[in-house]
């Protein structure tokens, strides 16, 4: 998503520290995501009052409280809908949406698909731990087939959703995957996602050290391969991105799968916003216009 830069070099890590420290479990992948977001905002020098961090509900959705920007901690699954309203009311704001896999792909699946096809200009970071953490360990939409959890003690018999393929199919204009243990790489993807004009989807492997004993740091480390290291990878090639998105098990690509910049953003496509953000608009409609509204009825 696009953004306004600070006039001077004034945004420091300390400015972005939240009012309380995160209450995530020690070792939780979400710490790495928080740090990467803060680093990205510092590197991009975006003043914190121009950023709105919006989440749903879940462990990772407590994120807005741990970063000093404008924040909204909304309903389970509804962050993207709220964020769309924020962006359309004031498109000068940098909108970050943060949440988990259950929040985004389960209860919020409908908004996920529609926000992507609308190309709402925001960065959506999913801290994907393939489990429900805050409710103490149930199967999530990205839990692998056969995974045993409290809600599916004999193993999941449902195929998981593939967030990358889904995002590509739904028309997301920036699709990437990160790993919270790959800080520099993740920070770079967040920066690109913020800069991208349109819907940026960033799925981040963010291991749950308490409830997911399958998809651990140790499990991911040998498998993740950076797309940036593959000289043959062309992020403009949608078909190739779709192909890469299907890779799993032995080799799991991380990095930018796909980006296109030729699709208008939702706010850019609506002439009502040409005069500037509605949050600063004059609420009174010119008298000659309101008179015409009444004349139509006579």
């Amino acid at each position, binding site marked *: 998503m696009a953004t306004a830069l600070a006039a001077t070099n004034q945004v420091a890590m300390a400015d972005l520290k939240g*009012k*309380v420290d995160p*209450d995530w479990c020690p070792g939780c992948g979400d710490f790495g995501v928080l740090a990467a977001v803060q680093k990205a905002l510092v590197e991009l020098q975006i*003043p*914190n*009052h*121009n950023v*709105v961090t*919006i989440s749903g*509900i879940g462990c990772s959705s*407590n994120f*807005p*409280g741990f970063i*000093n*920007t*404008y*924040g*909204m*901690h*909304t*309903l389970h699954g*509804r962050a993207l*809908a*709220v*964020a*769309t*309203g*924020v*962006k*359309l*009311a*004031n498109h*000068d*704001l940098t909108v970050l949406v943060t949440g988990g896999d259950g929040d985004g792909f389960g209860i919020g699946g*409908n*908004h996920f*698909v*529609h926000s992507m096809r609308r190309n709402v200009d925001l960065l959506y970071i999913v801290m994907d731990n393939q489990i429900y953490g805050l409710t103490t360990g149930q199967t999530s939409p990205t839990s692998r087939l056969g995974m045993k959890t409290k809600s599916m003690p004999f193993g999941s018999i449902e195929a998981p959703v593939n967030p990358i393929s889904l995002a590509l199919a739904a028309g997301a204009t920036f699709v990437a995957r990160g790993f919270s243990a790959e800080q520099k790489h993740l920070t770079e993807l967040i920066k690109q996602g913020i800069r991208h004009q349109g819907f940026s989807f960033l799925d981040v492997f963010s291991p749950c050290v308490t409830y997911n004993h399958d998809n651990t740091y140790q499990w991911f480390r040998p498998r993740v391969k950076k797309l940036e290291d593959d000289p043959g990878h062309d992020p403009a090639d949608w078909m190739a991105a779709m192909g890469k998105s299907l890779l799993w098990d032995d080799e799991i690509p991380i990095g930018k799968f796909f980006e296109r910049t030729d699709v208008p953003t939702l706010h850019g496509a*609506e*002439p*009502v*916003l040409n*005069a500037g953000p*509605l*949050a*600063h*608009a004059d*609420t*009174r*409609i010119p*008298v000659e*216009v*309101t008179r*015409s*509204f*009444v004349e139509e*009825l*006579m």
Partner: protein
Amino acid sequence: MKQTFAIGIGGAAGQGVATPGDIFAKIFSRRGLHLNAYNAYQSIIRGGHTFLTIRTGPEKVTNMGDRLDLLIPLNQDAMDRHLRLLGAGAACIYNSDTIKPGAAAEGAELCALSVSKLADITRNKVAQNTLAVGAGLSMMGIGFQALEQVLAEQFNKKGDAMVAENIAIARAGYDYATANFRPFARPLPMTTANRYAVLSGNTAMAMGGAAAGVKFYCAYPMSPSTGVLHWMAAHARKAGIMVRQVEDEIGVVNMTIGAAHAGVRSMCATSGGGFALMSEGLGLSAMMETPIVVIDCQRAGPSTGVPTKTEQGDLWQMLGAAFGDYPRAIAAPLDIGDCFKIIPEIFNIADRFQCPGIVLCDLLLSEGRLSVDPKDLDFAPVVDRGELITTASSGPNGDGVYKRYKITESGISPRAIPGVAGYTHTAASDEHDEDGVLISDEFTNPTKRRAMMEKRMRKVAGIEAAVPPPVLWGPPDADVTLIGWGSTKGVIEEACEILTEQGISANQLQIRWLVPLQGDAILDILKGARHTMIVENNYSGQFARYLRSETSFVPDGYIRKYDGEPFMPHHIVEAVKEQLSGKSTLSVPVHEILV
């Protein structure tokens, strides 16, 4: 009794019932006449039966009335359903090529038009409609010129030839009627003093939103609320309003909240089923203290119910929407003009008290149409955004000083919108402290929770003080007091007039603000009442139960209707008489018109 004239046009959906209705409405309103229109229809795009009633007169016409003066059946079905309801002095204009008249009451005139002889039906498929309009206007004593002008506007886009053809057909009907049919006994008067706007409640609420400064509107289509979306979408660019159609009502309410949080007045509309999906969002609005306005256009429920029929059955859903206790305002517009006025009013309440405002409308008003004095459509109403911080200098300085949910005596905490330097904070759906920090998990603390709960709920007293108490209409000392809420205002008013003419004095207490209810003021009004009856469009007496729960007030009787159609004045008049004679305490009038 005041002079009114009612026309009923019936036919299958797709036969063009609406167009003659629009033509009559324009002609009447331009003549300085008031009018009220109600279309009884079915959830079908082609076929079925739809019946439009347009009632006009020199004084305010508040409802569809009890009788028809002119029936225009466009098919046999409409003739069969409605002819028997015509009384002496009424007339029925019909196409004698295709429709057989039934037995009309004595004194009711059957006016046969042979459409194939008067017009070229191979060219014009709706010739019977246009002929009937012409014939009807002749019998009403209205000059042809008025019709000519409206037809020219109506068919302007289709070219001069089309205009000329339709005017010629109308003229043929007009002249045929002048030569062959008996004119109505009382010609409709004409005043040049007034010209009225004719609009639906949905248009009125949409325009009321525009007047209130709404800059964000979104919706998922749902009858009978969709008209609000249609007006908003058609006028969005002129009015500078961002209008979106969203994937579902859950998305709608949350998008509305997002836009409101960013600082613009935001509104959405739906019907009962969509509102059910919005319920959790109402709680979010209350907890984050983000003001939104949600319109619920009630239709007959439960579930998908009867999508095209009216009811006042959502009251308890509104009262119970979302879990937990929170301040909210709920208002029911009393007529279509009030649909406009109520929107800026409830936005001021929502903004000042940073809570959700609900407008409880219904199909009768949403899709009905009324003549409204353009002066009553005030696009410069009082706008009170409440304690809103929109620039870095417009409030107490931030940087550690600003507390979004500061505990105050009024319960209202100044609200900073994103983008203002020095006021960053988190608005949370979880319980939080003054500073917006979540206290639902590890920081939970009963003292903090209690303080925040009490802070929010203190706003209730402020809302109560900001809302006017209801007033009693009519003579203070009446034989009977009729209590209603929202859209039944007009029909109860006319029932009171009829009762008074018949020797039973009646007055009316119509409730507009449901929350806050102003129970003490209501009890004060009702303590002197001789015989009280609560009139409402639902099965269980939702308002009666609510009034009792809030005030312990129990009326002497109840008049209820839940067949999907609105009350007609005689339904209430007869029920009052029945109850005054001691025959019953619960009347459920039968809707005689089969629609």
